[in-house]
């Protein structure tokens, strides 16, 4: 039992260990050297990421409350990688920040919560993980202490996230009332499709949609993204969303499989709204973080399109897309974090003439945006293609047409930024920026990921075989 316990929960264990190391550093040392601390943390996170590839086993603990297998291990690796990149990108911002250690303790706590959530085999464990991953995030959003917008973001985040949790919890309680169990493995047997069960499913679905910021539950997203510090925003948009997608896959595909006819229609509506409204609002934005908030809403629509297929190919494409999305979105956020930390500028108009002084950063941002828009040869093209292909498998070409045509709309606003960078004139373009090595490393990783992932067919095949099992 004991050795099983250690192996199956190894990623949670290692995260907890890192949290305790950082916490004891906070408590027992004064007069800290920030650069050394940041480097130490990044090394720990890198070690944690590498460790994720070893000693992976399948099994369950606590009567099925916690379970893990190779797919879940892969999902945790993706989250670890994303967190590592975010942490590397946060270097320039955190170097002079008073609450560096608090940032990491909170950040890793949310990651721990996500790990538990993905591994949960029981609604109680799921809810515990969900809460653990969302409440500290609100505190993180507030970490730009002197900015009012940051506090505002935190407030909106905590209120809306509490509201979403309530709705989910209500759904769970109704479900418990009708089935008499909270265990994922046992529940499908008791799902009869009675009205109360459908009702409770709608509540749970809504809770997920809230966390995924799918339309019409997206209203918190733009304000929170705009107010929160850039590294927190990128964490919210990639890692936090990714974890919800992962658990959503298993909730839809295994737990509520018998409701497929119903959740397909719900997804259909959500996808159309999410993609269209996300895109239309993205066109109107002037703040680059708000812009990326809406673009990420639209991206979620495509992930849901893949999931709507209800097939293994859909799940594979969604996971694959999240890897690609991690690289491309973090690539874009990395440049924005750098600009924000050094020049303090976050408006799209500030990026006019960006190419004049920062050619390399311009290309990084451009390639990331191209990848988000799904233009080959970047990996984003493959990611989008597979999602759309999976979605088309259902034979609903109205949905596919809406999704594909929206890719053209999204191209417009991504190209608008590219146009600002390369073509628009500016008297006072952003001066040459010198980022830290850490942020450069993060951007290099993202660029390699964006270029290589598309052609690394083995990755897609591997995920496919894992899902197939």
């Amino acid at each position, binding site marked *: 039992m004991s050795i099983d316990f250690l192996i199956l929960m190894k990623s949670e264990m290692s995260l907890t260990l890192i949290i305790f190391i950082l916490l004891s550093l906070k408590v027992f040392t004064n007069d800290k050297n920030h650069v050394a601390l940041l480097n130490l943390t990044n090394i720990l996170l890198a070690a944690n990421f590498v460790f994720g590839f070893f000693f992976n086993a399948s099994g369950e603990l606590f009567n099925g409350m916690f379970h893990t297998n190779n797919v879940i291990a892969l999902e945790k690796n993706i989250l670890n990688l994303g967190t590592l990149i975010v942490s590397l990108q946060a270097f320039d911002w955190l170097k002079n920040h008073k609450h560096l250690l608090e940032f990491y303790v909170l950040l890793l706590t949310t990651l721990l919560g996500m790990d538990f959530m993905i591994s949960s085999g029981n609604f109680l464990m799921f809810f515990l993980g969900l809460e653990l991953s969302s409440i500290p995030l609100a505190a993180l959003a507030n970490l730009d202490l002197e900015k009012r917008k940051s506090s505002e973001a935190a407030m909106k985040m905590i209120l809306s996230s509490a509201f979403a949790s309530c709705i989910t919890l209500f759904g769970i309680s109704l479900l418990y009332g009708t089935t008499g169990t909270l265990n994922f493995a046992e529940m499908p047997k008791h799902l009869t499709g009675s009205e109360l069960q459908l009702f409770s499913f709608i509540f749970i679905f809504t809770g997920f949609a809230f966390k995924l910021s799918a339309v019409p539950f997206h209203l918190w997203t733009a304000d929170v993204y705009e107010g929160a510090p850039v590294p927190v925003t990128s964490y919210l948009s990639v890692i936090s969303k990714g974890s919800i997608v992962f658990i959503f896959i298993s909730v839809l595909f295994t737990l509520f499989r018998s409701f497929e006819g119903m959740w397909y229609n719900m997804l259909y509506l959500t996808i159309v709204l999410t993609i269209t409204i996300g895109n239309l609002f993205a066109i109107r934005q002037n703040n680059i973080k708000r812009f990326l908030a809406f673009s990420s809403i639209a991206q979620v629509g495509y992930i849901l399109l893949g999931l709507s297929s209800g097939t293994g190919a859909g799940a594979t494409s969604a996971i694959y897309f999240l890897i690609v999305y991690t690289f491309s979105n973090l690539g874009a956020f990395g440049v924005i974090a750098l600009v924000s930390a050094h020049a303090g500028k976050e408006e799209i108009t500030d990026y006019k003439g960006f190419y004049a002084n920062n050619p390399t950063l311009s290309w990084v941002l451009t390639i990331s945006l*191209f990848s988000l828009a799904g233009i*080959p040869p970047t990996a984003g093209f493959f990611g989008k293609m*597979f999602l759309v292909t999976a979605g*088309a498998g259902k034979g609903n070409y109205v949905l596919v047409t809406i999704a*594909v045509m929206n890719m*053209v709309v999204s*191209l417009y606003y991504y*190209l608008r930024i590219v146009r600002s960078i390369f073509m628009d004139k500016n008297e006072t373009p952003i001066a040459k920026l010198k980022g830290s090595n850490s942020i450069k490393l993060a951007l290099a990783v993202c660029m390699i990921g964006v270029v290589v992932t598309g052609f690394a*067919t083995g990755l897609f095949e591997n995920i496919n075989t894992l899902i197939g099992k």
Partner: protein
Amino acid sequence: MNLSLLILVPLLTAIAVLFCSNSTQVKWVSFIGSLGQLGLATYTMFAYMGARTGGNTSQMLFESRYAWYPALGIEYYVGIDGISIAMLMLTAIVVVAGVLVSWNIKRLSKEFFFLLLLLSVGAYGFFISLDLFTMFFFLEVAVIPKFLLIGIWGSGKKEYSAMKLALMLMSGSALVLIGLLCLYFNTTAINGKHTFDLLQIAHQHIPIEAQRFIFPLMFVGFGVFTALFPFHTWVPDGHSSAPTAASMFLAGISMKLGGYGCLRVATYLMPEAAHEYSWIIILLSTIAIIYGAFATLMQTDLKYINAYSSVSHCGFILFGIGMLTQTAITGAVMQMVSHGLMTALFFGAIGMIYERTHTRMVAQLGGLLKAIPFIITVFVIAGLCSLGLPGFSGFVAEMTVFMGAWQRSGMFNHVATVLACASIVVTAVYILRAVGSSVMGPIKNQEFVTIPDARWNEKLASGLLIAGIVVIGIAPFLLNGLILPDTHVIMDNISRGVVGLK
């Protein structure tokens, strides 16, 4: 013969450009790379002809395939036939010429040549792919470099034109994508997997109901690239704002991507639907031919003249494909090659004139023949080819299209053919008028007296393109013989599905 070299050489050249330290190196690396690619394409052509005369009768030669995403049945699958060879040669010649006329690019030359070469990678890949996914991948690779080329190095309202072009072409490829997915899920699944394999789909019978839905998507999607009326509006803006080499690439290569796609994908794979919708294609392309010609009459800017005349000339490509007779389709392919070379030459000459006189307005030019005889000769040759003078490629191609079109019976088709023929008169009017008033007469502006004539690079570029035009014009059987067996294969597929066509 490994076809992947045709993609690798330009790709490696593009990457090598990134490592150059100054603009001289950039130019020479791109020039040598594109010249090597031209050599490779020529070698491929001779190897192909050798294999054919050696008795190899398989539909595609030099095939190679690798499983790319086996879970979805996506393969990297390339192979060529005569039509692809013609397109490859066209692309290779235009790329060399494009690199040569861009010799004086000073601003961000590294980025410029990188994007040009990336665009050509897309075109080469597109013409040799036999897997629809691979093909679509390369099609999209060829779009976005244009946005940057026009937006950064262009002139006039370049940002607007670049955005318009990118969005319209991407909408076109979005339509293609929808059609592609629908086609994919309508193929017969083998071992539970559908296929993107072009040849395999051609041998399967796609249900006619599905064809009725997919064909318009595909044809219009690819048609946007070939200036299908009414989706041609990106052509004048895009061409006139683009820098010279980009205009050459756009008109010479990109517009042919669409024609090739309309033929190879839409018509070849869905013959019944092609037959059903044939009258719409003929109608739209006749409108494009006539409208393009009359619209050109009204233009005063040389680049706009050539852009609108491209709309008219590309109309012949779609017209030939829509007629669905073997001669007409052969003519359409010849028109693709001919128009590609001719319009690249035209844009090249206009670029050279503009660089020296700083104007493209016909009214402000005049008497240039005395000042810059070489460039003007090139300009006149391009013009004469465009109006279809015998001896140049334009005549041969258009003639073949008309002959083929007349073979198709029916009043409607005959009327359309007559109208399309009549447009040649209008073409003669605008070409002769533009050439006459900008070339002949006394020198209007005294500053023009001292401008220098063509340099070696410009001479070489023009020579290469003119050679292509003249060879096809004088010995059309070379091109004809190359593509005839393959248009025959396409016809076979069409007449298998549709009784009464030959």
